[in-house]
């Protein structure tokens, strides 16, 4: 197991536009922003759709299921960690970390599931672990 010690995670900066996302994270839910105009979900969340520029966007709750698009284990850090892009079942790929696993066994396209990790004085971060 490459992940022995705990990393201290900085708190994300919460803005008016993303308050609901982080409030949901505190309750263990991952929200995704979806456009009711073009029907597509995007990430990171915005009030105006980056695909069709409609302002008719809404929050949906993600299933928490995804696949590992790519990753890299940062070895030159006080506590090595796995940087990743995960493809959510809802469509968008998001920047995240893969946690609670043997980093040496990670593979692109493997299924992963949502977990949350506490931050230093802020809302928890959505991360993923092998499913």
């Amino acid at each position, binding site marked *: 197991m490459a992940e022995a010690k705990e990393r201290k995670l900085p708190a994300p900066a919460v*803005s008016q536009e993303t308050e609901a996302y982080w409030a949901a994270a505190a309750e263990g839910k991952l929200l995704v922003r979806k456009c009711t105009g073009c029907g597509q979900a995007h990430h990171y969340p915005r009030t105006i759709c980056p695909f069709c520029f409609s302002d008719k966007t809404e929050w949906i709750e993600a299933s928490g299921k995804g696949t590992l698009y790519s*990753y890299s284990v940062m070895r030159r850090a006080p506590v090595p960690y796995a*940087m990743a892009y995960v493809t959510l079942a809802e469509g968008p790929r998001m920047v995240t970390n893969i946690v609670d696993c043997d980093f040496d066994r990670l593979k692109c396209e493997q299924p992963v599931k949502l977990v949350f990790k506490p931050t230093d004085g802020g809302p928890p971060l959505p991360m993923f672990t092998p499913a």
Partner: protein
Amino acid sequence: MSIKGKAYIAGIYEHPTRLAKDISLAQIHAQCAKGALEDAGLTKDDVDGYFCAGDAPGLGPMSMVEYMGLKPRHVDSTDTGGSSYVLHVGHAAEAIAAGKCKVALITLAGRPRAEGMATGTVPRSRGGTPTPDEPFEFPYGPTVVNMYAMCAMRHMHEFGTTSEQLAWIKVAASHHAQYNPHALLRDVVTVEEVVNSPMISDPLHRLDCCVITDGGGAIVVVAPEIAAKLKRPKVKLIGAGEFVKTQMGGKVDLTYSGARFSGAAAFAEAGVKPADIKYASIYDSFTITVLMQLEDLGFCEKGKGGAFVSDGNLIAGQGKLPFNTDGGGLCSNHPGNRGGLTKVLEAVRQLRGEAHPAVQVTNCNLAVAHGTGGSLGLRHGSATVILERE
């Protein structure tokens, strides 16, 4: 309006330092400006256009304009990270073609070594009001190296690219750097040495990464009527392109870079093909950066970059596409963590026939210089220029 043939690169200068403990940032900018103007046979008072990026001290171009005593009637401080200066060459040509200036000066300087900056391995917040992306990225620990590494990981997954293939890029750069007395790393390395160097962020090893150096450089771009009066060999700009590639709202694709679009625009404007190019300056923050850009610029098919760079194909005198014959960012210099300007410099040296004789490309009449700035895996600015010896 096309910029084809509307501007020439008349002067270049690369600061010889790689560790600038005893000189200031502004001093390096000015020394480079002086060097490039002297190379062109021009003076400070000839300069009527000034271009710089975020490495210049102060707000936009203003502090450096004051420090150097310039009186520009046209300025541009567009910042696309390390590719800014390649983009500036294109913007300078646009300004010249539009009659906004005749002698454009572009400068770059940086002191990350002297300042002890942890360039590639520490996540950085820009401070101040966060960018909209920052809360969704910074807390996870993105660094320069791990975001490029994720591109390499995906490339390996989709196309079967190997660490040994990536290593050939460093090997080629090291073959060139041995002839550059100013290069930080002058030892020729082998594929084995690259893949056995310490893993920094999988799959990138220490020797897959560029050097961290202080230094700088400058370029003087001039109108055709100015170039006609100067004594230096004439290097004409015939094509330029730029693009900003992003995460596209979550439709992330790490297998290609913005070079696909900036390169296509530049080649179309120039009316030439990748096969016509005799020498290529390719941004080399990491080995994977080079491989992806070569594919995206059209030097080989997407996914075939690994085979293309192998077996010395990028080494001058041996391979089909000599690249970064000064040793590039991988071995010589990556001043201020911004390697675009030095890419233009070596392309100009090659076209003038002023590269080191051991790496000079025979009858080098057409070259490309390409830059990627920002983060290949997050968002980046691409810029391509095509230069022709007249």
